């Protein structure tokens, strides 16, 4: 549950989610679940004219996400490395 844990720590921060259909959505991370489904609030797209029906919030299914661009200062890379190591060595998995 590494990435679920990781995204939980980023709740409330601004992220940009790039989907597999090449759509990029910028918004504030509202919540995430174990399937890495993402809820964003206050979203904006590059081309608002093309997507007028984009309201303030959206729910993105985890499987369609290609990238998530994060703010660098919110990430503790050392901790992330450690958690990756623990994840790989955990006996319960």
């Amino acid at each position, binding site marked *: 549950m590494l990435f679920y844990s990781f995204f939980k720590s980023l709740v409330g921060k601004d992220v940009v989610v790039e989907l597999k259909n090449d759509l990029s959505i910028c918004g504030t991370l509202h919540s995430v679940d174990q399937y890495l489904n993402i809820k964003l609030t206050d979203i*904006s797209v*590059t081309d608002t004219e093309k997507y007028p029906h984009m*309201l303030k919030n959206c729910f993105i299914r985890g499987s369609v996400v290609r990238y998530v661009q994060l703010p660098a200062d919110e990430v503790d890379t050392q901790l992330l490395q450690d958690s990756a190591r623990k994840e790989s*060595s955990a006996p319960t998995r």
Partner: protein
Amino acid sequence: MANTFFDFETSLNNGENILPPDEETTAWKNEEEYDALNDETFGTLEDSSNLEDWEQQHEQFAEIAESSKHSEQIENSISQLVLDNLSDHITVSSSVWSYTPASKNGETFNSEILSSLQKASKSFITSHSDNTKSNASILQQLNKSAPPMTISQPKKNLYSRGIREEPNKNPQLQQQPKQLQTKPLMPPPAGHHQGPMYHPMVQHPIQNTRLPPPGLQPMGIPPPGMRPMPPHMNHHHHPMLPSLMRMMPPHPHFMANGPQRPPGFMYPPGAGQNQFPRKHFITIMTKLFSIDPKVNHPFNFPPPPRNLGNVHPNMQQRNVHSLQNSPHGHQQQRTRYDSGSYRQQQKERDEIRDEYAGLMSLREKQWLLNIQMLQLNTGTPYFDDYYYTVFKEKKSKSNKENLGDRNTSYPNNKRQHRNSDRQENQNTLTPRVYTPLQFENSLGKLQCGSVTAPRKIIDMDIVTPDKDTDSPQVARDTRRTKQVLLKLEALYALLLKAEDIRNPLYISNVEKLREIKQKQRLRELEMAPTPEQKQEILRLFKLESEPIVENQYDYIIKIIQGLLQEEKFSSFLNIRKGKMLILRLLPYLTTDTFGPQLLELWSRVLLSLPIVGRRDTAGDNILPKLFPFFKRYIQSSTMTDVLDIIAGLVEVVKQENNRINLLVNLNNQELTVYPFGVSALVVLLIRTEFLISSDSASEKQQNAWSNFLQSWSQQTEAVAKVASPLELIPSQIFIKHCNRFNNLKSDKRSLLEKHFVDSNN
């Protein structure tokens, strides 16, 4: 495996029914004989234990849905029930549920047709009399369970009450309460047309329709102002109700599947609220009543959840339809205002087009979310949720420190907070303009793909090098680096374990894990069928009960040995990971327990400085962080240690006559270039002075040291840019020190003094 398959045996040799050669034709022939809705395919609804099996339930629902698709049946029943005076007008077809504008008696047509349909459904229901029995048993089961289900009974009454409260303009209304109380299982009329667009949440539409979820809060009674509704609308509640009830979260379903619930499952807090407000319920009723039958209302089922940003194309189509519906929609929206529901009036105006908003209150949504979250609850977050747990802890620690340290600048902090808040607020008010990522000093912008114009991705091809002689070298290098990395990872794993031993979070979580395992074993013990298995479980239980005592020392010693075994120690230091490993390891290496290892370690570090130093100063600058540890170590070292350290730095070439001439190793030169090296030398000097003054250094040792001093000063002269040490030599110490050694010429001495001595002290 199913027992039968279209009435054929499922065994491989076919048993008795060996098919003739032309298997297909006979198989298809038999299709006419078999009834698609037979019990064997869809199961019976005899006992309530079936309810526990969701598969069977689903089959039942599918059966009912299937059967409703058969327009034949409906047509038949309708033709049976058709009223005399309408026999001429009504053209009953499979499109009976669709909007047919070309009708002479628009109003009466629809109302009559629908009433007859209702009767048809009733007959349909009674033909499946088993359903009611099972429904009753479902009800019982559900009633047994906790608070949420107590709503069911009052709900039933409210159903009828709600309907009765409506204007009794249509006498047929009176039939309906009864029908409702018999739990109409009318499948949604629009369901067939909309198939895939069914409400995403609902799995078992029909059996649970009569029971609303607990705490269905935001329902409101429409004010009396709603009464003057077109009478022809009253009939629609019947087909609509089941669909509406379907919209309710499948709470009863959860109830039914008791044993499958997650271990820590508690009934959602929202369930306890039994203030089943009839208000809202009747709002829904009137919403149904108010829908114009002339409009495509069937297509509006099931309603899409309102708060999704992305609208499915089907939904868009429906929205168009509902636009036509707008006058009524608006009306009913207004009624919801007046009924004092939770929504604000401003929002309502924005959502005029959406008739199906507000089906779930915030509490209900939270309830659903809680159910999802409950599944993720573990007793051991340190293991399952490592990043988040530790991150939060670190953050809270840093916050506490900040609060402690910055009490003086508190108004500043407050101001900062306010600024950030203001920014946040502004963001929510004005739509944020998103610009894609832009890099400095780059030509052009990042390609931003869209759905209509996808981004081109550069393909990478492996280009084989022209020269074959290079490739083995390259391969060897990559292999070596990979080996180093692998070794580092192994050491890291050990380090993490070592760190955990003293970590309170880890300790508590391990305890918790052990308790959970013990409980699990006990449960297994109870359920174990044979005594041998019981023995096995007991054995495991005892094994797990013993607390594992781990020694931190063992781990540390393993790590340090692993580090020092490597010949090319510098390869570790070249990689950032390696430096971090040493940095994290050093706090555990106390001089008393790890003396010799530390000596070895530091000498190697200093030796590899020329190789590693440039990379470090360019990038990470981690070596200076090692300095405090070095200082700590040196302050408890002996002269021998000091000399051991510098021995590697200075290559002593014994010339035949002149022992003083030293060919200084390149290392020494490099030392003076890097801040870490220089700081190390400074510390060494201070220590040496201390040792000499306390008479811990022999004559020979002092000589060796003075030689070193000379070479050091020579190097300082030679090097163009001398780094400044992290700590300077206090001048008194320096003066004292230099006076001991007469061989240090004055200019060299002044040079040293200039760079390394603290002039203030």
